[in-house]
């Protein structure tokens, strides 16, 4: 299968976020897993988390979550699954480095709903668009206090054993 990825960065100066880099560095195996999940659930939106060691800003453990809304235009983690996964991260000294979901008919850019409901200021919000059958658009954003900042996506090989 030939797949074309488009990842983009916001031109111009990006505001700083303290200890946060304006780039998401992520292993290609994890990106593949996210894309596979999004394709599998298409046309419903898919959602999940990539955990990483606290403070590392490095996503290392992919966790596909159920979309409790099972909708083409809305996603919501199941509250009990979220508790289990968040506890697991806590026990492992991990945090949600990436929170991702797919848009299945529109671009990979946060909707007003996404912005309004974003509750993890430390996370990279990754959006994948599966509206094109042969290519995926993958973009990453910080969403803090209602402000969206796009960041570069740096896909690398072999930062984790996959």
């Amino acid at each position, binding site marked *: 299968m030939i797949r074309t990825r488009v990842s983009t960065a916001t031109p111009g100066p990006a505001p700083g976020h303290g200890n946060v880099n304006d780039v998401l560095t992520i292993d290609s195996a994890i990106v593949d897993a996210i894309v596979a999940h999004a394709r599998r659930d298409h046309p419903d*939106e898919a*959602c999940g*988390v990539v955990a990483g060691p606290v403070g590392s800003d490095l996503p290392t453990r992919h966790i596909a*979550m159920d979309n409790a*809304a099972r*909708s*083409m*235009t*809305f*996603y*919501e*983690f199941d*509250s*009990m699954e*979220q*508790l289990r996964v*968040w506890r697991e991260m806590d026990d492992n000294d991990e945090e949600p480095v990436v*929170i991702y*979901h797919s*848009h*299945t*008919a*529109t671009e990979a850019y*946060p*909707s*007003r*709903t*996404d912005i*309004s*409901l*974003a*509750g*993890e*200021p*430390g996370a990279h919000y990754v959006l994948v668009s599966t509206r094109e059958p042969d290519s995926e658009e993958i973009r990453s954003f910080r969403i803090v*206090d*209602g402000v969206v900042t796009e960041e570069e996506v740096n896909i690398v090989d072999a930062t984790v054993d996959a």
Partner: protein
Amino acid sequence: MAIEVRVPTILRSYTGGSKVVEGSGATLSGLIDDLDTKHSGLKGRLLTPEGGLHRFVNVYVNDEDVRFLGALDAPLSDGDSVTILPAVAGGALGFAAAAALLGRPSNRPAAAPNRTEGQ
């Protein structure tokens, strides 16, 4: 009577950065009132102006979602552990449509993660 409360990152500005605080109360409602006396403003992030639990805040007592325990009337005992997590939700649906779907006015984002204080 001490109840351990785990506070998510987004609400730690109300707890001086603390991840875990203690409170007391015979019900979740009482606990939230108690927490608000020590961490002013926290209540406004957990409850709607009508006094219900925000749709997009998850509160758990021990291992159970309080929505299955009577929500704000959920009984609490000494030694219970309460966890607050912002719901993870969103999607391509427009906000007004999402609000209609979720049964609340579109002009008032009920999400706790959003700013509700005059900042």
